[in-house]
C-alpha cells in the first residue's frame, strides 16, 4: 500500500515534470522567437454588440467637478442628480462616470474617440458634463497672473474643442439630452472679483452660444449659485465645491430632467 502511494506520486511527478518542461519550451519559443504575423485588428464600433440593460442610462463626462472632487461623500453633483431622480421614477438608473480629474477640452475630445466610450454614449439617455474649468483657470494661471490675451487664446482653442465634443456626441447619439454645466467663479470674494467674474461670465456666454448650435444640448448655469456666500459652498482648496455646493448643482440639474409617459414606455 505505502509502496503504491510512492509509485503513483513518483509517476505523477515524472509526468508533470515533462509537462512543465514543455511549458517552459513553449514560453521560450513564444517569447523569444515570435515572428509577427498580421497585427491584431482593432475593433470598430459596429463590431461591438450593444447589449442594452433596462433602465435609464446616464453618462457623466468631463473633469474633477463631474468626478466629485471636494465632496467628502464622493458623490459629486452626479450622485445628487441620481438621488433626486430616484424619487421621481421607479426605473433603475445606471450611471457611468467617465470624468477624469484635470481633464481639459482637448482631452475630452480625444477621449470621445475611444470605441468603448463611444459605445457607452450610444446607449445613454442622459449625458451630464462639465468641461473648461481647467482650460480657463490653469491657462490663466488661476487668473492671478491675469492676462486677457492668454485667456482669449485659451478660449478660442476651447470653443473649437467644444464644437468637436458636441458634434461627436450628437453624431453618436442624436436623442440623448446633454446637460452642459457651465462654470462658476471660485474667486468671487477675492479682490479681483470684478474682473474674474467678467471673464467667467463671458466664457459661459460663449460656451452657451456653442451649445445652442446643437439640438437638446442644454447649458446649465451655476454662476448664480456661487455668487453669494461663495466660501460656504467651496471645499478647503477654495476651488472645488464642497458637499453643499455639489448639492446645489445637483438639485438644479435634476429639476431640469422630467420623465414623460412616453419615456416610461420607451425605456
Amino acid at each position: 500500500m505505502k509502496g503504491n502511494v510512492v509509485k503513483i506520486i513518483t509517476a505523477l511527478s515524472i509526468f508533470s515534470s515533462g509537462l512543465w518542461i514543455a511549458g517552459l519550451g513553449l514560453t521560450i519559443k513564444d517569447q523569444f522567437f515570435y515572428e509577427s504575423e498580421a497585427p491584431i485588428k482593432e475593433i470598430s464600433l459596429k463590431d461591438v454588440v450593444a447589449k442594452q440593460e433596462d433602465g435609464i442610462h446616464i453618462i457623466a463626462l468631463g473633469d474633477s467637478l463631474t468626478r466629485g472632487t471636494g465632496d467628502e461623500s464622493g458623490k459629486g453633483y452626479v450622485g445628487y442628480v441620481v438621488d433626486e431622480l430616484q424619487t421621481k421614477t421607479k426605473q433603475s438608473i445606471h450611471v457611468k462616470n467617465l470624468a477624469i480629474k484635470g481633464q481639459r477640452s482637448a482631452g475630452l475630445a480625444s477621449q470621445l474617440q475611444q470605441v468603448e466610450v463611444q459605445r457607452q454614449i450610444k446607449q445613454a439617455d442622459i449625458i451630464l458634463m462639465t468641461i473648461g474649468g481647467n482650460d480657463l483657470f490653469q491657462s490663466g494661471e488661476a487668473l492671478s497672473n491675469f492676462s486677457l490675451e492668454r485667456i482669449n487664446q485659451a478660449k478660442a482653442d476651447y470653443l473649437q474643442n467644444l464644437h468637436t465634443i458636441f458634434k461627436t456626441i450628437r453624431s453618436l447619439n442624436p436623442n440623448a439630452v446633454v446637460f452642459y454645466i457651465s462654470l462658476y467663479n471660485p474667486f468671487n470674494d477675492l479682490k479681483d472679483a470684478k474682473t474674474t467674474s467678467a471673464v467667467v461670465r463671458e466664457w459661459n456666454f460663449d460656451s452657451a452660444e456653442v451649445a445652442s448650435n446643437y439640438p437638446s444640448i442644454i447649458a446649465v448655469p451655476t454662476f448664480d449659485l456661487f455668487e453669494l456666500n461663495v466660501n460656504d459652498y467651496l471645499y478647503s482648496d477654495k476651488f472645488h465645491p464642497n458637499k453643499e455646493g455639489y448639492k446645489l448643482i445637483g438639485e438644479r440639474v435634476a429639476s431640469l430632467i422630467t420623465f414623460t409617459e412616453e419615456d416610461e414606455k420607451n425605456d
Partner: protein
Amino acid sequence: MINLVYNEMIKIVRKRRLLIIAAIIVVLVALFTYAQMKRVQSLQEQLGTTDWRSQLQQQIIDTQNRLNSSGLSEEWRKFLQIRLQQQQYYLDHDINPSAPGAPTFMRMFAENSIDLFIPLMVMVIAADLVSSEASGGTIKLLLTRPVKRWKILLSKYIAMILSVSFILLSLGVISYFISGVVFGFAGWTMPLLTGFSVQGEELDTTNVHILSQWKYLLMEFGLVWFVSIIVGTLTFMLSVLMKSTAAVMGIMLAALISGTILSNMVSSWESAKYLFMVNLRLTDYVSGMAPPIDGMTLGFSMTVLAVWGLVALMISFLVFTKRDVY
C-alpha cells in the same frame, strides 16, 4: 541510480510534507476563491453592470484619475501607466482579460504566488533534504554504502525536482477544481494577449499576439516551475552547507521576503537586478507588466536565475563530495 532516486522519494513521502503542502494549498485556494467571488460581486454592485467592457472602462477611468492626483511615487505611477495602456489595448481589441472561470483563476493564482507562496512551499521540501541527514546522523549510514557521494547527492537533487513538479501539479489541479465550483470550469480556449514590451513609460505593442488560455497557462506554469527549481536549488545548497534545517529555512525566508520588498523600491538601485530575488516574477513579462528595474527582460531574468542556480549546484556538489563527515 533509479533505485537511489526512488529511495529518496520514499523518504519525502514518508515525511508527509507533500500532504501538508497540499492541505495548505487547499485552504489558501478556498480562501482566495471566496475573496475573488466577493470582489466580483462588489464590483458589479458598485458599477451597476455585469458588462465587462463597462467595468474595464471604469477601471481605466479610475486609474487615470489616480494618475492625476499628486503624491504618487515614481514607480507606482509607472506601474499604473503601463497597466492603463494594457487595459486600453485589451479594450480596443475587444478581449476580456479576466473573464470568470477556473482557468482564469488558476492563471491569476499562479501569477500572484510565483514570487513568494510557491517558493515557500518548495522550501519546505528542499530545506531538510541534506541537513536533516546531517543533524540526524543518518548521513553516515548513507555514505558508508558503496555508492559514490555525488550519486547520492544527485539522487536527492532529482527527487527535489520531482517533488517540485508534483507540488505544481497539485496546485494546478486543486485550484482548478475548487475555483471551478464557484466560477465554472470553462475558459480553456479564451483568447489572451502576450508579447507586450515596456519601453520606459510606454507600452510597445508591435509583437502582441493572441494565445489561447490553455497555452498561456502552460507557459506560465513552465515559468513557475523554472523559478521553483532555482529556489529549490538554492535551498538545496544551503541544506548541504548547514546542519540546521531551521537556519536554512530562516535564510531562504529572509531572502524571499526581502525580494518582495526590494522589488517595490529598487528602481533607483540598478545593480539590484542581479539579485535572484527581484527576478522571480517571470510571469509578469508574459502578461506585460512593468519590470521592477528598467531594462529587465524575460531573457535577462532567466539568465540571472540560471546563473544563480548553476553556481549553487556546483557549490553543493563540491562541498558535499569534499567534506569530512565525522
